[in-house]
């Protein structure tokens, strides 16, 4: 009666097929068309910048795992996503070392010392981008004209004429130079992966369908940004025009889709997520209105990350206060 013939295992004996690597693969798939779109305007240089960021992040994660004597976590894809996001948010004329430095900071300073994948408090991509923005502001917010049709040279430094982006026009106030159609089609200067608005919307839909990102974060975030842009317009194009330009300029939309939805640093409960989206939206607009730079979404995300756990608990407690009281009484 007591002999053991079969193996022991814990329930459940079935698992869903999704893994962290599946979710990261989804994000990388969604980032690919943005990269291709940029290559159409600027040639191969933006693709190389993204690959540099990606390669640097993967290399740093491997080194970090070796130093910490841990099993390599590169196959889960989170480092690749961090590197690719940093690469996509730099200017097409940035030197190659800028995304590489940002990715190295993200992985070696923000992610690995916290314990690696799944344990970081702040979003590594936002932190890496913030670090290089603060340290080397001269390489940021300088964008070439996408309308020239000429591919950018592949050398480390590029000397081409820079044109004002919609975000810089917002920062300086006055009339915007770009029509809503141009803004939607992405024919305006900006970071590599943040100008293709229609593609970004398609990516968001893809990720929503795949349940990789949560509408509870993105929609309140965009709604708050739109509401603040409507109430406090910075351009003479009227309230509706202000909403359009604010949402399409800089990397506000990109941030709402890819960075804010990082599951590790966002709240898990739906009500906490809504609060997080609202808070991030307010902070992004505040950094835009009162910040030193024309785009401060990465700083705003870091601030919002600090409140993620608190918002998460508050959201759940708010909905379950009666249950908890009943339990304490009993």
């Amino acid at each position, binding site marked *: 009666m007591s002999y053991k013939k079969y193996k022991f295992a814990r329930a459940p004996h079935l698992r869903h097929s999704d893994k962290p690597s599946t979710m990261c693969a989804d994000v990388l798939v969604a980032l690919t068309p943005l990269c291709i779109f940029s290559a159409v305007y600027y040639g191969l240089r933006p693709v190389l910048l993204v690959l540099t960021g990606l390669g640097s992040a993967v290399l740093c994660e491997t080194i970090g795992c070796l130093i910490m004597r841990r099993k390599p976590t590169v196959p889960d894809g989170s480092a690749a996503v961090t590197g690719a996001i940093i690469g996509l948010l730099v200017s097409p004329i940035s030197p190659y070392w800028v995304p590489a430095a940002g990715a190295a900071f993200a992985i070696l300073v923000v992610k690995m010392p916290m314990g690696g994948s799944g344990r970081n408090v702040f979003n590594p991509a936002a932190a890496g981008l913030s670090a290089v923005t603060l340290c080397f502001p001269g390489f940021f917010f300088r964008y070439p004209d996408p309308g020239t049709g000429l591919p950018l040279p592949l050398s480390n430094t590029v000397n081409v004429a820079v044109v004002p982006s919609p975000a810089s026009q917002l920062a300086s106030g006055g009339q915007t130079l770009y029509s809503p159609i141009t803004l939607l089609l992405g024919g305006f200067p900006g970071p590599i992966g943040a100008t293709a608005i229609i593609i970004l919307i398609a990516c968001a839909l893809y990720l929503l369908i795949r349940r990789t990102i949560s509408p509870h974060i993105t929609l309140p975030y965009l709604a708050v940004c739109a509401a603040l842009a409507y109430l406090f317009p910075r351009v003479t194009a009227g309230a509706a025009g202000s909403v359009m330009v604010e949402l399409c300029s800089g990397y506000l939309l990109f941030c709402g889709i890819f960075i804010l939805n990082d599951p590790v640093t966002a709240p*898990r409960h739906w009500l906490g997520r809504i609060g997080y989206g609202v808070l991030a939206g307010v902070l992004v607009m505040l950094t835009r209105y009162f910040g030193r730079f024309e785009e401060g979404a990465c700083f705003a995300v870091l601030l919002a990350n600090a409140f993620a756990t608190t918002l998460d608990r508050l959201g759940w407690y708010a909905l379950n206060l009666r249950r908890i009281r009943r339990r304490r009484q009993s």
Partner: protein
Amino acid sequence: MSKLTKTGIKIPSLKQPADQRPVVDIPLPSRLFVPLIAGDGGACQLIANENETVQKCAVIATSGTANGFVYSPASGVLEGRQTVFHPLLGNVPCAIIKCAKTKADTRKKVPLASLSSEEIINLAFKKGIIDELDGQPLAKKLSACRKSKNPVLIADGSDSEPYSSSSWAVINQWGGLVYKGLKLAAIAAGTKNYKIGVTLDKNRFAGLLEKYRQAINPSVFIKADGKYPASYDLGNLKHLKKADICRLGVQACLALYEAVAFNRPQIDCVVTVTGDCVSNPRNVRAPFGTPVEHLLNFCGLSDPPEYVIIGDAMTGLAIQSPDIPIVPGITCLIAMKNRVQPPAHPCIGCGRCAAACHAKLLPYEIMRRLDNMQYERLDYLLPEECDGCGVCSYVCPSGLDVADKVLEARDSLGNIFMKWGVGDEL
């Protein structure tokens, strides 16, 4: 008692081909290991002597109370008593019965008297009827129903777990009798609201209604939403949303009818035998005490299994010995060669466990506080409301055993630490 909630997750069905086949009676094994536990949960002492011939349905042990009896599931010779470790019951004394060849089961119908509520509940106790959904005595559940204000009985034939189809097989084969048993249960519970829940597509549901057009009022059937854990599409029955729902197993309803109509105790159950190692997956009716290996051999093994699970894939227990006997509450037996166990990754915070939890808990937070030894702060997260459905572990992309941790917090270990942690200044 519970309220109906519309939550749960879709799990791909793995019921075919067992759910397409009729229930078959399994030939008796050489020996049965019958746990000496009465229907009311009391430990029993043998009243039959060693080497004494016992008849099927005869009382072989009693707990000394008015309703505590253990019945022989088959005719044979009582060889003695042996303590057996059973994953569901712990170390339990079992009567060993060497089965004798008997004629086919003949049931003598007794005249159906109009029984009162108490009489039905007493009969359910006396005949040892256990609800297969939760392993609770049916009589206890009916007594609890009686005390609630607006009870609604649902004979739960939804088979919401991925492999099991035993409830559906019972409804398909003995639906009329299940309905009669449910009506008796409703009398016992003092309610006129009773339903039979099934998970079927449109065509099969229409076929079921057609099949039982004469015997069962079609409005009794309700469709489950096909999610796990089961919830029901109430349609126009919205008034039931505020009712106290009491889910009964269809096999328990059938046993209640047989107890009243044939004076027969619950001595067998229908079990789905399936899995990637079973060559002929099907639903079989086996007497209690049948060793698991006998069921597997009856259905045939295409490969020697590495894992054998009693219960279904979401909540079942992996057993290690092939001699574990079938006891009330087992409705599925899975023999698996390969079992998906993803390598554990740190929690990535996707929140899927919280979104899927039908008890509306925060499984990831409970797990985190348990790991960080913040036992005193576990109390606020209500881990005791977890029913152990396992959905949080199923959906976890990191492959973590979330449900295990929540259950750990819920069960005694968590309580001890919680008490210890309160007011701790360190």
